[in-house]
């Protein structure tokens, strides 16, 4: 059948766009010719709102950016503010932050693998991975009462000490984790359909990836060993020994493998942090009304989705003059067109899924 190029509209309310993203696709006989993401359906005006809030008030709002990795957002913002203040955070607090951030990375990657597999039609994986994720959310809930939007990090430290109960809970989660990751891998790794749908699909070269500013697991899947935890360590990451998984294929399958391996490394980091948890304060002295002298900083961390940066500019009052967030998903999503061109229409959802985007931080 002579099929003309047709334009398809995916979203903004579509089962697989992971939120309110709209994709304008030009399809020629199921082959993708062009993809244009249309953003802004979740634009809440965060950055404008932040200019009218005090520094500590902003922390809970950062939870709502990348809502699958709330603690990572907290950490990114809080570290930027602390750098601006020149505040030294107690070592115990830094370790607890690492534990929370890595747990969050586990939760985020687990949710990702579930969504990704669900997009490709293997819905059981989603249910398995969410069950494992629930255990981690239980840890957060026990630690500070939050499940999804955790608000687990405060300026100057962490809100609560890590007691033996929570530590034991985390250890139990970590003990069960290898088996659960293996369960998921059993369903996917040697599955011919999964391999067919992911291998050689959505390939991007390392040079292109750098040009597009790709960060995080998608970049490491192209062979660039860029992990800010190693590159510019923050929050005492230099104390822990862990590997940065790097693969060279640059396709969907390698992105999947990188994330699965990162989960094991995260578990290792958490164990080290729990074992080496130093005694002492978990919160530095921070004035009740926090006024920061004029200045500006840009600080980045390695969030589960990629490089998460916060630019904070103070003007001497208790409210920032400008807070700008560099969201990894926003930058990573730009690559979609490059990755999708020439692939099949059915692969768009897989490629989009493999980028691990969250609309909350794209649209801000």
């Amino acid at each position, binding site marked *: 059948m002579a099929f003309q190029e047709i334009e398809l509209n995916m979203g903004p*309310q579509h089962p697989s766009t992971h939120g309110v993203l709209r994709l304008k696709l030009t399809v020629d006989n199921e082959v993708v010719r062009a993809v244009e993401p249309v953003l*802004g359906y*979740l*634009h809440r005006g965060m950055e404008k709102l932040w200019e009218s809030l005090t520094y500590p008030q902003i922390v809970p709002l950062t939870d*709502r950016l990348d809502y699958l990795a709330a603690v990572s957002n907290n950490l990114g913002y809080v570290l930027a503010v602390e750098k601006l203040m020149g505040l030294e955070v107690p070592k115990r607090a830094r370790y607890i932050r690492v534990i929370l951030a890595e747990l969050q990375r586990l939760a985020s990657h687990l*949710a990702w693998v579930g969504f990704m597999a669900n997009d490709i039609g293997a819905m059981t994986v989603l*249910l398995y991975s969410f069950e494992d994720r629930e255990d981690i*959310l239980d840890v957060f809930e026990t630690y500070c009462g939050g499940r*999804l939007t955790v608000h687990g990090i405060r300026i100057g430290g962490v809100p609560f000490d890590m007691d033996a109960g929570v530590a034991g809970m985390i250890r139990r989660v970590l003990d069960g984790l290898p088996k659960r990751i293996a369960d998921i891998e059993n369903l996917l790794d040697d599955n011919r359909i999964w391999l067919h749908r992911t291998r050689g699909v959505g390939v991007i070269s390392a040079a292109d990836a750098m040009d597009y500013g790709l960060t995080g697991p998608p970049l490491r899947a192209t062979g660039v060993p860029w992990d800010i935890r190693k590159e510019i360590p923050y929050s005492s990451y230099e104390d822990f020994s862990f590997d940065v998984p790097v693969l060279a294929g640059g396709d969907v399958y390698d992105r999947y493998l990188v994330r699965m391996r990162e989960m094991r490394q995260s578990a290792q980091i958490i164990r080290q942090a729990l074992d080496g948890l130093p005694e002492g304060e978990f919160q530095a002295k921070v004035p009740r009304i926090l006024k920061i002298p004029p200045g500006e900083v840009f600080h980045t961390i390695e969030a589960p989705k990629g490089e998460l940066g916060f630019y904070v500019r103070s003007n001497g009052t208790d409210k920032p003059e400008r807070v700008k967030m560099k969201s990894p998903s926003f930058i990573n999503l730009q690559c979609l067109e490059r990755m999708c061109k020439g692939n099949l229409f059915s692969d768009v959802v897989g490629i989009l899924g493999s980028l691990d985007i969250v609309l909350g931080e794209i649209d801000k």
Partner: protein
Amino acid sequence: MTDAAERHPFLLTRLDSAITWAQKNSLWPFGSGLACCAIEMIATAAARYDISRFGMELFRASPRQADLFIVAGTVTNKMAPIIRRLWEQMADPKWVVAMGNCAVSGGPFPTYSVLQGVDKIIPVDVYIAGCPPTPQGLLHGLMILQKKIAGSHPTKEILHPDARRTD
């Protein structure tokens, strides 16, 4: 017909309870994930909380086949016309649950781009507070909706089309 119905209210009541029994036990939600709450909605469908016990796990991708519109997350001004259109595409009888503070009232975002409550554009049956509500919260809200459906009179709406909800 109407006179006969009024002479035998018993029959209509039985019919009402049969219809509402079916309706409340077979609420197929329209999977409309907008923001953070969508993740908790998915968690509700996942193994720990398992919405399927109530027969609600059939998240329909097409609004035409759904009965329940869970507005899960922040509705922006850019999204509002689409939400309205999706709601209009749903077949009657339909119900709306506003999940989370954003859908209820705009939540923590009193800004230029956020709709201050989804009830400004579509009628809402149940409001669930929380930022986001826990899965237990969502399930509780859905059970309240079931109670609300059980107390409704669908035959009245069929016999007197004017009596249809105008809220």
